[in-house]
């Protein structure tokens, strides 16, 4: 069924249809921010600024932070 309706449409025109911005925006806002928070914890927490006190986060991701290219200490 699905195959017979999709078959006449060439691949290119099907993929060229952009996803509407209205459909992307809510995901981009919520998950974009969430992902940036994750990056912050890997890249900068307890370095430049600290939300959690101590050195635990910094020390735990220490090697990854250096090797991924973030300034560490």
């Amino acid at each position, binding site marked *: 069924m*699905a*195959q017979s309706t*999709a*078959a006449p449409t*060439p*691949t*290119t025109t*099907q*993929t*060229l*249809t*952009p*996803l*509407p*911005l209205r*459909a*992307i925006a*809510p*995901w*981009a806002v919520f*998950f*974009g921010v*969430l*992902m*940036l928070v*994750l*990056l912050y*914890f*890997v*890249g*900068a927490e307890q*370095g*430049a*600024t600290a939300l959690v006190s101590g*050195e*635990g986060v910094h*020390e*735990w*991701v*220490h*090697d*990854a*932070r*250096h*090797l*991924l*290219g*973030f*300034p*560490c*200490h």
Partner: protein
Amino acid sequence: MNSTTVRTLLVRGMLAGLAAGVLAFVFAYVVGEGSVDAAIAFEESHSHEHGEELVSRSLQSTAGLATGVLVFGVAIGGIAALAFCFALGRIGRFGARATAALTALAGFLLVYLVPILKYPANPPAVGDPDTIGQRTALFVLMIALSVLLGTGAVLLGRRLAPGWGNWNASITAGVAFVAAVGVAMAVLPHGDNIPKGFPAADLWEFRLASIGIQAVLWSAFGLLFGYLAERVLEPRPVRGRVSTLTA
């Protein structure tokens, strides 16, 4: 329907990022840890006070490294999947796989390679702890500028393409990007503070390992996500090439 597609792509992007993170972790452990250890040995031989160890070196180089790289992979995968959703069908006549590959390439260049040309990755012992705030701010600023200018270049290329043709438009956009990034790099202050006597070869090896890790991460993500995205967006067992031949 479209919102569901975005959600599916986002989830698959994060999964592809996780898998790419596993490969990048293996690469980092095998190739990168040697130069981290060398830098720490230098640090200790120069009586840099380090206090008591919160996390042991063996944990930092295994579980700690894995945590950092995997979380980084998931986050990068999610953001790149969202960027892919924007790019799909908007950057030219590319299918899902090609768009994913281009998104990953753009991510590698704009989020990592261009920023580190100005502020390269530094091993332990390199960098003054007192300037960490400033160095982090400059690094983030460099990434933001690179992403903004890169996005601007893509928009410029798309605008010029109808009149100038794809080749000329892409070259012009690329040159404009390089020129603008060059100006930004010239204006921003220096970031390096390499201690006297730190072996140049170790520094280069560390930085090369860092580039390798990010290259593994982004290329694995681009290829994997392209495969996963194509199955969402072009769900047919036999695709494109075969159907055009038989049609």
